[in-house]
């Protein structure tokens, strides 16, 4: 077999040929980019090798380069009669929000594998959330498992390495009861994807010895052909280990797993749509035992100061890792030195393979022996494959043949900037039809129906598969109450065994709001993520957020317009809540083309906001379960008639309505006061009102505590008296809070100026009684509600 590099004829090629080369080789490069490559090599007086063109394709891929987020976009927005035009670059808008806040919490943002915030005087928290959508749609178990493995490596590659202490998982799946006949060719059944994805995250996370304790799941028909898998990891890092730099003449050391054909074209593949003709090679299968061994020895090497720089070998493989590390210096790599799983790989395959469990180190000469000895002593592969040299070029050789020799400047700065147009239009607020309550048999039945909805139902079947307590740091677990029957708003972790400072992690996700207005979806997601943190005891003024945008075909002006509007929402609301973005990721082109009918389906524009916040004292962290009968119940925050996209509207097939709008000044005022009360031990239970509104929040608190309640909903502060608004509106900025009678006066005094209403009491009779206008509206047995809630999600 001839394993020399092949020449790709681009010099002198016409536009059609250039596009053909891109498509045939799965490069996912557009005509402008192919022309830039042609021009570069025309000047060099030769054609590129396959290795060179693959290197450029990986580096310029949407996955690695975020072309859409860096593009200059002419944006036009029309809301009712109001028209707005601006030139916008999405990535700049997000970064600008963080810069504007200039938060002392931020240690390292938007420049490393993960964002890092200050935890205490000597430690930081690194947090990253990645998507692994295309791989998980094709091979759910392997795709989701390697999604987890990949994000763990991102955190290991943040600074000089953060030790992972928590995993998160958030999924969007198609509805589970779809028939096989409805599925297009090449699409796995949503149930199979659901089970495979959960199993993949479970097996990787559990075997790594990292707790998976925070997450969310959304089901919607529009995710059937493109499910979404978000995997996150939080790690702890000494602040002294955050800064890193590659030094000239450092050795390039590849550590961890061996290299095979798996995952080839993963980076460029994520830039294109799915269909039934995908190749086996894009699928990655993980081996957590290899990564666990690598992680453990890496922490020792970090503490001994054996390397100057570290990064993950993720999308684009060595091409991206070494290419980025050597961007300011230059690099020489001998590809034949890369340890292989099997022979007969072409040089370009070795270079761009996305085989898992690999990382790259930059090691000074004087420390190389100790590092190699250390890795050998723990039976972890570590191989010198090249050196960083001050040439400004990326030079690769394979058995004495030069297979790549390109300018680092061209590789990293040569991509033509895209110029795009985007449009968004919507009716004036309040213009949507306001349809009233449908004919339902009764309010009790309505509550039960919503509790049984897959989007509200208990996640216990999933949660119980994860080890959420390994490492013994988990203070507030995913399920709460004496019997673990209620849901928690967020996970609280105690970081060090000799202190009580901790952190909380939560998230906000609601694509249903985005179908109506992506701008307000952004506001709601940001606020929900923050509310979740505050509800468990985190300080709203010491929190940071991450964004993950998953969108469909953004080649169209309208779909791109919804993305722009969402980014504008992120920018505006993050600033108003004082929440810096510390990291983010976009996954675009989540659409599917049915090979047989040619029909294209896209996911709904989806924004996941993940939040991390400091819990000053984990002994005062809060849970949602009712604690004691006789205690008062307060609904904090104002209820508005905002039923658009609500669980109630979807369960009962009601269209239209206004989407909830976050009101940051009002919500922050309330949350700061609530945090003060939680810190003072005044509050006994706290739960945020989100999906399903007040009714669901109350029932979840009752199920967690195994206690009932008497609730008078007409005492709630609201702009609407309709029962469905009071029970099911998903207005933002609201919490249900339990306060003992003794502390009620103090609570009301502290909360002065905020919207609160004493709506009833916790009772011992395991029945929730709801009254309206002096009459009983309905009563619901807590046990019955719990059974319905727990049976809504079938494994």
């Amino acid at each position, binding site marked *: 077999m001839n394993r020399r590099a092949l020449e790709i004829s681009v010099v002198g090629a016409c536009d059609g040929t250039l596009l053909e080369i891109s498509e045939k080789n799965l490069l996912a490069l557009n005509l402008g980019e192919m022309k830039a490559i042609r021009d570069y090599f025309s000047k060099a007086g030769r054609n590129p090798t396959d290795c060179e063109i693959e290197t450029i394709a990986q580096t310029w891929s949407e996955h690695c380069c975020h072309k859409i987020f860096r593009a200059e976009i002419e944006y036009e927005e029309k809301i009712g009669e109001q028209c707005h035009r601006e030139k916008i670059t999405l990535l700049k808008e997000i970064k600008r929000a963080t810069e504007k806040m200039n938060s002392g919490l931020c240690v390292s943002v938007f420049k490393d594998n993960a964002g890092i915030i200050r935890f205490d005087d000597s430690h930081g928290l690194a947090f990253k959330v990645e998507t692994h959508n295309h791989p998980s749609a094709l091979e759910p178990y392997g795709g989701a498992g390697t999604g987890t493995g990949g994000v763990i490596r991102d955190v290991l590659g943040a600074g000089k390495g953060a030790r992972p202490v928590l995993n998160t998982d958030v999924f969007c799946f198609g509805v589970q009861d779809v028939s096989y006949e409805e599925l297009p060719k090449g699409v796995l059944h949503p149930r199979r994807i659901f089970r495979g994805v959960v199993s993949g995250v479970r097996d990787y996370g559990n075997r790594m010895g990292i707790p998976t304790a925070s997450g969310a799941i959304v089901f919607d028909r529009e995710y059937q052909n493109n499910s979404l898998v978000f995997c996150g990891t939080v790690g702890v890092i000494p602040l002294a280990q955050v800064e890193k730099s590659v030094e000239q003449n450092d050795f390039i050391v590849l550590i961890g797993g061996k290299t095979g054909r798996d995952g080839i074209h993963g980076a460029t593949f994520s830039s294109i749509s799915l269909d039934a003709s995908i190749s086996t090679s894009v699928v990655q299968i*993980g081996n957590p035992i290899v990564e666990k061994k690598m992680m453990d020895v890496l922490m020792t090497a970090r503490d001994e100061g054996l390397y100057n720089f570290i990064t993950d070998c993720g999308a684009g493989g060595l091409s991206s890792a070494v290419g980025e590390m050597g961007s300011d210096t230059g690099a020489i790599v001998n590809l034949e030195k890369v340890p292989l799983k099997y022979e007969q790989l072409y040089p370009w395959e070795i270079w761009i393979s996305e085989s898992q469990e690999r990382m790259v180190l930059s090691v000074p000469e004087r420390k190389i022996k100790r590092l190699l000895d250390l890795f050998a002593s723990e039976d972890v592969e570590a191989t010198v494959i090249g050196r960083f040299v001050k040439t400004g070029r990326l030079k690769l050789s394979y058995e004495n043949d030069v297979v790549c020799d390109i300018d680092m400047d061209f590789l990293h700065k040569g991509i033509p900037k895209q110029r795009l147009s985007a449009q968004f239009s919507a009716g004036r607020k309040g213009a949507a039809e306001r349809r009233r309550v449908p004919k339902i048999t009764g309010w009790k039945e309505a509550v039960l129906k919503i509790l049984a909805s897959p989007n509200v139902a208990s996640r216990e079947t999933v949660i119980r598969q994860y080890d959420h307590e390994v490492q013994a740091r988990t203070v507030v677990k995913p399920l709460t109450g004496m019997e673990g029957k209620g849901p928690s708003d967020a996970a609280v972790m105690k970081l060090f065994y000799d202190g009580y400072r901790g952190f909380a992690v939560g998230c906000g996700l609601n694509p249903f709001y985005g179908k109506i207005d992506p701008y307000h979806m952004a506001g709601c997601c940001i606020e929900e993520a923050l509310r979740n943190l505050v509800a468990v005891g985190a300080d709203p003024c010491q929190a940071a957020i991450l964004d993950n945008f998953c969108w469909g075909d953004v080649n169209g002006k309208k779909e791109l317009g919804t993305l722009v509007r969402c980014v504008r929402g992120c920018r505006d609301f993050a600033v108003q809540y004082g929440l810096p973005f510390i990291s983010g990721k976009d996954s675009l082109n989540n659409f599917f083309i049915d090979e047989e009918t040619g029909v294209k389906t896209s996911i709904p524009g989806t924004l996941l906001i993940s939040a991390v916040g400091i819990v000053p004292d984990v002994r005062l962290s809060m849970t949602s379960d009712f604690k004691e009968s006789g205690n008062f119940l307060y609904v904090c925050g104002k209820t508005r008639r905002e039923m658009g996209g609500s669980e109630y509207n979807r369960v009962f097939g009601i269209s239209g309505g206004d989407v909830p709008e976050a009101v940051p000044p009002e919500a922050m005022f309330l949350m700061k006061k609530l945090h003060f009360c939680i810190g003072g031990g005044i509050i006994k239970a706290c739960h945020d009102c989100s999906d399903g509104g007040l009714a669901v929040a109350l029932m979840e608190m009752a199920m967690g505590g195994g206690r009932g309640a008497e609730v008078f909903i007409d005492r709630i502060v609201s702009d609407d008296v309709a029962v469905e608004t009071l029970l099911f509106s998903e207005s933002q900025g609201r919490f249900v809070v339990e306060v003992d009678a003794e502390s009620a006066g103090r609570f009301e005094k502290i909360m002065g100026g905020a919207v609160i209403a004493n709506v009833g009491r916790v009772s011992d009779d395991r029945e929730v009684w709801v009254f309206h206008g002096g009459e009983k509206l309905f009563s619901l047995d807590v046990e019955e509600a719990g059974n319905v809630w727990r049976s809504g999600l079938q494994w």
Partner: protein
Amino acid sequence: MNIVEVCNKKTVPDVFGQEIRGNIRETGIGGIEEVLTSEVYRFEGISSRDELTRIAGEILVDAVAQDYFTGDSNVERRNGYTVVDVFYRKGVTDAVSDTVVIAMRDAGIRTGVSVSTGRRYYLKGNITDGDVRTICEKVLVNPLIQEYALVQRKGKNE
């Protein structure tokens, strides 16, 4: 090529098999009475049955809950079942086989052996050839990374 098959002892419920049976039912195929599963290891480079038995006994089997069989002896024992083997396609990472190779080396049994791992499904019930194909394609196999082989066919079209 030599095969070792590892399955639960009769007294240990095959939970995975029960889950697969449920998944098959969800496709609309109702004739399945029982599904049993086992892990299958294919070795290239070993010809001695004694050596295979040692590998199975010392590395592959949990003697408390599992039994092992070499060759096709378990298939012959379960002659009333349709039997399907599912293996990874060539080139797909097989992490378990890597671990088996390392374990054989560490136990001082053998080096230089190639192993591939898969799963064997025993399907009991009145099912047609078409049903078997549907079960394989929709439940047992992800054709992108796996391939299947019909080892034994029992049922309606027999």
